[in-house]
């Protein structure tokens, strides 16, 4: 079993999922550090991601969009809060507007990644995502699953039209 632990905290709107992979830590780090690999797993199968900018340095930005079967595009971005290869990575995640530009006024989640080498070999990856509010959770659902992508394209437009939250 790849996923070995799931911890959900509804009050903190936090999901921590821990998985173990049969690969060296440097190899697992590449799924974040190599944009060509990142775009193969971030988006759902029906909406593959295209990473257009990838600066995995503190303060750096990663931009991507996902393209649906109708050619519809849904943009997003990460901002690197902290990075310590190949062990830890901390990202702000947010929505991009229709033109693919990031909206720094609307951070929606903080993603913390921690890689370690357990005694039994392989690599353990813990990914903890803390969402700012329910809308942020809805947004990641809408842009993370096939069903969400199909059903919620309109909702995303609505979300993007929302005024910035305080």
């Amino acid at each position, binding site marked *: 079993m790849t996923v070995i632990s799931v911890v959900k905290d509804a009050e903190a709107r936090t999901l921590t999922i821990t998985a173990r992979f049969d690969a060296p830590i440097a190899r697992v780090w590449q799924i974040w550090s190599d944009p060509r690999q990142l775009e193969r797993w971030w988006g759902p199968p029906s909406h593959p991601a295209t990473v257009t900018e990838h600066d995995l340095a503190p303060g750096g930005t990663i931009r991507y969009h996902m393209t649906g079967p109708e050619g519809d595009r849904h943009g997003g971005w990460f901002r690197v809060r902290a990075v310590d290869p190949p062990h830890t990575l901390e990202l702000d995640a947010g929505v991009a507007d229709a033109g693919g530009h990031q909206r720094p006024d609307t951070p929606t989640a903080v993603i913390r990644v*921690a890689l370690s080498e357990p005694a039994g070999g392989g690599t353990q990856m813990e990914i903890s995502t803390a969402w700012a509010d329910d809308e942020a959770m809805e947004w990641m659902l809408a842009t993370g699953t096939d069903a969400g992508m199909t059903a919620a394209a309109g909702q995303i437009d609505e979300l993007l039209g929302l005024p910035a939250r305080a």
Partner: protein
Amino acid sequence: MTSMKFTPAHATSTAICPGPGSGTGSSVTRVALASGADSVSELARRYPISFAAVHKHVATLERAGLVTKTRHGREQRVRGDAAALRSAHRLLDDLEALWHGRIDRIERILAHPTERAPQ
């Protein structure tokens, strides 16, 4: 490992844990939910923590939209928002499924290291 800055205290848990957090803040929420409405001072009496600590937890839960605070004369009453809690639970369940999909895809990428060479 000293570089594991982001490891939460529960990281060693190997059990699937579907419930909310087990800290005092969530206890306050549960009590507020169970009793419909409660005063901050009553909550402080009921728990071995200070009035200020209860205030802090309630403020956190209020910011998260999980409780609402109303003033009745000299008392501040706290009401848990059951709908918001259920909503957050449901969303987390769906988000867990989303991440299982991502982990599966990562696993497949790692299983075929030569499929596409890293940059």
